[in-house]
């Protein structure tokens, strides 16, 4: 039997395969989102009526930083997964709502170069809630369809209510307020 070696067909199929693989590689490489460090400083001197223990202070610092890293990731990747763990109650619900509507609208926002100056102003007698005021500085960038439509250095003030969860402090309320 005569065998006709269809080189052109073979080459074409091979190239198709290569294109598929290259696209997949590109997709994977592009999935690695940027993760910039979040700076947080905490001042607990004004906390009352209960003083903030050093272990709690460390916990607040760690968990607040994690919370903002989560917010940044969730809003940049339009992913709800990042919001698990760091938030509870209304704060979680509002953030989820924001991400969901952002998914529908198709744009993303990035919080870059975050710097938070956190001040504990109220710590409940039984230690079950802490109110903090955050003066946050960051670069807010909004991107729609790959195009940056807004990029601004922002100084924002937040009132934050944090409560102890199973193994960490979680944000129960995160509310931006005008500078007083």
């Amino acid at each position, binding site marked *: 039997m005569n*065998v006709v070696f269809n080189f052109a067909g073979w080459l074409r199929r091979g190239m198709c395969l290569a294109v598929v693989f290259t696209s997949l590689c590109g997709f994977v490489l592009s999935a690695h989102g940027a993760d910039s460090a979040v700076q947080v400083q905490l001042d607990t001197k004004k906390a009352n009526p209960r003083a903030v223990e050093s272990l709690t202070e460390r916990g607040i610092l760690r968990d607040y930083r994690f919370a903002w890293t989560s917010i940044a990731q969730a809003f940049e990747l339009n992913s709800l997964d990042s919001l698990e763990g760091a938030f509870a109650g209304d704060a979680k619900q509002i953030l989820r709502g924001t991400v969901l509507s952002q998914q529908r609208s198709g744009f993303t926002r990035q919080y870059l170069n975050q710097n938070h100056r956190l001040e504990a102003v109220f710590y409940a007698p039984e230690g079950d809630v802490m109110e903090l005021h955050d003066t946050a500085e960051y670069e807010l960038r909004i991107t729609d369809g790959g195009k940056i439509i807004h990029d601004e250095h922002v100084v924002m003030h937040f009132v934050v209510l944090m409560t102890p969860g199973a193994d960490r402090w979680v944000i129960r309320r995160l509310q931006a307020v005008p500078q007083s």
Partner: protein
Amino acid sequence: MSTVRSYSNPIPILAIVLVALAVHGPLLLMQLPSGSFDANFHMFFASHYAHHWFNPWNEKWFGGFSQTTYPPLTHQWIALLSNVAGLKMAYMLVQLIAVLLLPVGVFRFARIWVDDRAASYAALGSIFLGSLAFLVYQAGQLATVSSVALYLNALPYFYEWMTEARGKSLIKGIAISLAAAAAHHVTLIFGVVLFAGPVLWVALLDARDERVSGSVSGVLSRAVVFAVAVGAGVGLVLLPYWLAIIQHPIHQIPIPHDSRANFLLNSTTAVNYFVIPYGALILALPFILFRGAASSRLRPLLIGFWLTLIFGLGGTTPLPRWLLGRAFEILTFERFTFWATLLAMPILGTLAIELLDRFQSKAAVALSLAAVSTVGAALWWLNANPFRPTATTNVQPVIAFLNRDGHDAYRYITLGFGSELSKVSIYTSAGSVDGDYNSARLLPEMTHYGSAQLTNAKFYGSAGMASLRAMLEHANRYGLKYIFVHDTYYEPLLTFVGYRKIETFGSGEITAWSKDDVPPAHKIESDAIPPPWQGLLWGILPIGVSFLAIFLELLLPERRRVPAAAGVPVRAENPERHFVA
């Protein structure tokens, strides 16, 4: 066509494949293997590839493990097909492809040793092997079956390359061998000795006796070229696997497996691992011995068969332990029995044609009965054997529980679930510290004891329970809050270590237990996480070589062999008989 004439011709390969389809197609469509030991394990791996093709780090088992510790080809094919057919049916399809490729491989492999007619009967016989039914429907060893099917298809190219120096055979042989390695590395490693060894030996005999055009030195040098190329290829295609195994060699305490037992001391084990896989083939053993020894060309095959048979007997003889050393305690030996039956098929093919030539229809009926009873016994044994996997449990409530109310923020284990553990893992977003793949375990609570899955802890006696205790002792460290129990045996321990029954599913069949002070699970840091480039390699090369093998088979077809000139003498000592068929 008269009956006599119909028996005197080779059975067309298409007909053999159709018979395989007719026998195994319905069983696979009925999803019979879904209750096998490893089916859920394969689907679990495939499910991960379906969601994270280029990220082999899977956090659903062992608090995180790398899937580069198991060759990915079959799983990736299931993952690809699952987009169309769903996960379970995709598994069945891939298994069906392997089952259909097997008689083709046996046919092509047998033609190295015997003529087309005997080879065709060998291929037909392979469809009814008890060992095949055992591996497919009871053990669920998809990768082993797929790999050996590919490997048997690669070996004739190896032989052709050695004896005829055909470049096309070299390329195709290498590509299919790499695909076989990408399906199951163990098959390839042992195949080098047990399958390729006899092929090399017969090629040398053929060269020496001038039955082929190549010289002895030519055969040897080409064998080296093939081996080097395949070795390098396997090194590259499975590079992340080798890196993982070098970084974390398997140092865990050996886990007992009944295929390593002495069958003489345990009748049930003997039935399970010898009688059922061999079936009616046991009756042909004397013929295999004498006919294999009678022909110099068949002797390499006989030696290969005997060695594989001895390995398949596990701990019945000390030979595997002596030859394998520590690897004896890691391997399971039912696959050797499967390979042994495959190696016996060419000689069995000659028995079939001799019987048919002599007894015609009577022989046909007897052989058919033997074949059907062998596969039938293996299927009957699925439900009759005491090793059978636990009866299918409805794990849906467990999955639903884990996926609601933030329960997936914690880890879980199942107890008494058997292979259903993998099913839970596939469909829940929660992670477990347990898992159904021993070689990927790195947590000391599991590797320091001679037991396998925590879900089967009691079957490993004190070692299993010690491993479970060690894990529960560190429940808080791993965020192990939920335990699902399908065997009241475990309830006392859970009670005494502080777990509390919180829910009951399926009329009390399964209970959910929780420990109140366990914090949410945190990511477990590990040096076993493959870097992204390994993920890319793993996602591209193994599936890539399988595509390559398919393309090469399609684009470089074989020349049709002329039947009269194709046969290699069944018995070289009596060349006149070669033309009788």
